[in-house]
């Protein structure tokens, strides 16, 4: 894991440096770096014994995790450089690297200026996200959580669209402010641990099960919840998202939607609930209500958009509502569904953003009123978009259906009323997805329009995502098996 982080981080520096020799070089360097990282991960995982995947990753026994690394960092506060990986982290890291490649492909011909610095920022934000998914020291987690914002900010602020300064600033301030609340919570937790045990510690393993009295536990939990819900984004903290997504360059949108949002979901799953099981259980109705509200509200707003990217952005709000519901329903089915939704949404939304980027590059607009009948001009693009739209609205046979179905099934056991409301989201999802497809690719067309269809690189990227969505939709079992031990141990942990 350390090597993985080092490869990405140093690769970023290398990509920047390589611009001195050739303005094309950074792309190839970035491609090489991410592919190498992915290969490294694959080889490392393949070499693990099969038995390693079955035990529950336990807080007391680091060796039950797939990988564990610990190095003292700031002994004064009991802070260490502690990384660990279980099935959940593995899937998310793999998704991160894969979407990194996809983002790279999206930026291949879009970014012509200062490619070196662009690719460096791309790689650095990947470093931060991978760090978030494997850090198990809360201080280290916070460091990665904050540091990944800086390259992302630069990606939006330098290479974004017309209103980028506002969007980048809003994105940064929302996440940073809520992050500081989390820092206060982390410190309160560590301080409480120091009071109980006599020494500071920020290790996840030590802090699990720190006794907190009712009111304090609630406030500390709320700090974590706010930070991750802003990131997720949950209603009503979602307002940064449409701006940031719309203004970011395509690669930035892909990273944002695909993986940065998942850090919020991951944080809820890994930290916010297990660290404070009782407070979280009491708070669950509120969180679920926010999730359900997000599903419907996001869908209604998505329906009202005329901007292609904004529509997709609001659909993210709606989809992430399912993740929030799944997590707070807190049973095996719903959690599996939430994890599945994270992966499926990462793929399908990344693909839709890439479509939006491709359209913008070709037509110089994201306004759907100026589109219509594009299928006529670019059938390959239309076919891909059709498939991803279907995925997004939850067509059986594709990954998103599996995810939403599992969440609803689990949720029905925990809170039937919420499940009924959330199920409405499937209907509204179909409405806005279809209207998007209708306005852009169908309807009366103009055969004389100059619109180059997908080239080989874009088609390949799209096909990879199509293949993954179909595979996970038809045969989700391997992924579910990989995360089952994690889910079981989280449930065990929270039940005390």
């Amino acid at each position, binding site marked *: 894991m350390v090597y993985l982080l080092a490869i990405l981080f140093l690769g970023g520096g290398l990509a920047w440096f390589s611009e001195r020799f050739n303005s094309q070089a950074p792309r190839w360097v970035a491609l090489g770096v991410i592919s190498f990282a992915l290969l490294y991960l694959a080889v490392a995982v393949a070499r693990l014994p099969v038995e390693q995947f079955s035990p529950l990753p336990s807080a007391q026994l680091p060796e039950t995790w797939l990988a564990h690394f610990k190095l003292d960092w700031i002994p004064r506060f009991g802070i260490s450089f502690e990384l660990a990986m279980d099935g959940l982290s593995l899937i998310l890291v793999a998704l991160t690297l894969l979407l990194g490649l996809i983002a790279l492909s999206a930026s291949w011909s879009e970014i012509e200026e200062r490619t070196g610095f662009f690719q460096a920022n791309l790689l650095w934000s990947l470093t931060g996200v991978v760090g978030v998914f494997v850090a198990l020291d809360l*201080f280290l987690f916070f*460091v990665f959580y904050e540091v990944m914002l800086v390259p992302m900010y630069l990606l939006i602020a330098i290479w974004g669209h017309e209103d980028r*300064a506002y969007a980048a600033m809003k994105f940064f301030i929302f996440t940073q402010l809520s992050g500081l609340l989390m820092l*206060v919570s982390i410190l309160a937790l560590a*301080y409480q641990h120091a009071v109980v045990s006599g020494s500071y510690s920020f290790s996840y393993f030590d802090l699990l099960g720190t006794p907190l009295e009712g009111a304090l536990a609630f406030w500390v939990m709320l700090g974590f919840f706010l930070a991750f819900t802003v990131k997720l984004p949950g209603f009503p903290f979602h307002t940064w998202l449409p701006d940031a997504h719309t203004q970011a360059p395509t690669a930035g949108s892909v990273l944002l939607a695909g993986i940065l949002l998942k850090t919020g979901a991951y944080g809820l799953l890994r930290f916010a609930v297990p660290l404070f099981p009782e407070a979280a259980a009491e708070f669950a109705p509120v969180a679920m209500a926010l999730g359900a509200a997000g599903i419907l509200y996001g869908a209604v707003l998505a329906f009202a958009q005329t901007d292609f990217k904004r529509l997709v952005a609001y659909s993210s709000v709606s989809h992430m509502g399912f993740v929030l519901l799944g997590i707070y329903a807190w049973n095996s089915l719903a959690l599996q569904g939430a994890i599945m939704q994270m992966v499926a949404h990462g793929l399908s939304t990344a693909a839709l953003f890439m479509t939006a980027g491709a359209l913008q590059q070709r037509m110089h607009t994201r306004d759907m009123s100026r589109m219509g009948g594009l299928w006529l001009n670019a059938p390959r693009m239309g076919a891909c978009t059709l498939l991803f739209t279907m995925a997004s609205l939850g067509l059986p046979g594709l990954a998103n259906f599996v995810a939403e179905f599992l969440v609803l099934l689990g949720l029905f056991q925990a809170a039937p009323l919420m499940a009924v409301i959330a199920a409405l989201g499937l209907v509204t999802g179909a409405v806005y997805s279809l209207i998007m497809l209708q306005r852009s690719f169908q309807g009366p067309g103009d055969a004389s329009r100059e619109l180059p269809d997908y080239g080989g690189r874009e088609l390949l990227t799209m096909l990879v995502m199509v293949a993954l969505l179909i595979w996970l939709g038809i045969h989700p079992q391997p992924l579910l098996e990989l995360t089952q031990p994690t889910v079981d141990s989280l449930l065990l942990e929270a039940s005390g």
Partner: protein
Amino acid sequence: MSGVNWLAVAPLLVLSGGAVLLMLVVSVRRSTEVACVTTTLIMAAALLSCLWARTAIPEIVTPLLLADGYALFFCALFIGCGLVTAIIAREYLLLRAGENEEFFLLLLLSTLGAATLAYANHFASLLLGMELLSVSLYALIGYPDKLLRPLEAAIKYLVLSAAASATFLFGFALLYAAVGVLDYPAMGAALAAADNPVLLAAAALIIAGLGYKLSAVPFHMWTPDVYEGAPAPIAGFLAAVSKGAIFAALLRWWMAAGLYELPGLLTVIGIVAGASMLVGNLLALLQDNIKRVLAYSSIAHMGYLLIVLVACGMVPDPSLAMEAAAYYLVAYTLTNLAAFTLLGLLSRASGTDELDTVADLDGLFWRQPGLSLLFTVALLSLAGIPLTAGFIGKFYLFSAGVAGELWGLLALLVIGSGLGLFYYLRLVYRMTLKAEPQTQPPSTPGWSARLTCYGLVLAMLYFGIVPAPLMEILRTIL
């Protein structure tokens, strides 16, 4: 005084002797280069003597000075800042016609003042150090005597700083009348026993005087004007050393006299801290001039620091809060010095005389990538983004605040940091804008200045990534 006594205050002696030496050198040969090199060497010698003096501590040298780890650590920090300022000032002065040698003389004297403050253990030495520091600064701020703005700034600083000193002195007089002692350790006991209404007036006057010097709200009005008018290297020195030294002296007083046990004082400091954070950050949002932005941000940073003084009184064991104050002070000094220094160098490199408004930064990232990147790191450190010294400082503040359960002040700290991000990021954003076609050819600053800046920024990153060694040092000296 014995030999050990002399050794324990070696840095002060080296600086004083150096000032005399420089005066002689200037009378023999007037040259900016020679004066700069001499000053650099004197500062370096003083730094080394700090190391040497470590063998002689702890030692009470006359009732006025206490030579201990704390004194030597901060002494070394401020001399280091003086060294940086001397090297950077060369760039600035070489372009200026007229006599420049006295600039270095004044710089040595004001560094001596800062070093004395680090040693101060008595009101007399506190006042001596403070006046030495400020009086040299009046002249340094107004050094470009043909320009209007520096002169205006110098007058403003002179009048307000003198008024603050007078207030401060009067407060001391009242305090002395009430308790009858002037050295810190004895004062703690005397204050705990005393119950005299005169003390209230004394406390008010002293807080006002210190508030001026630290530019805490509501005594902050002079700061933006003075920073804006002062030459860039001096603005950095003013922000980093002048405030840092006074805070270091205050912290020592706070600790030695146990002032944190007086609840009324804690309330007042808490209010001042909250107001500084809010007002500093809010007003920084409205500024278009970069130096004014940094000036208001330094007001806010002083507010952050004052939280720690309050935290001292709310916990059974104030050592964590002290450590937090010391770490934040180091981070603050380094970061502010770096930010102002880089701003000065960037203006020089971009061909304009002084970078004034935020709009002047446009496109700098692509014209001067190296310096701009360093400036970005300094701004991120001011904003408290992880991997920089500023973040560890803020982390310490948060831990001290949580330990003291100061939820209200912590909320203000979070809000202030959010506001702060906005104006720091605005500067970064302006730098990344598309470059205008350049009118003047860029001039690169000399190697010594560039090397110094790299050193400063590396130190900032080092203390942000590997903070453990510095934490250990601070724990041993407190």
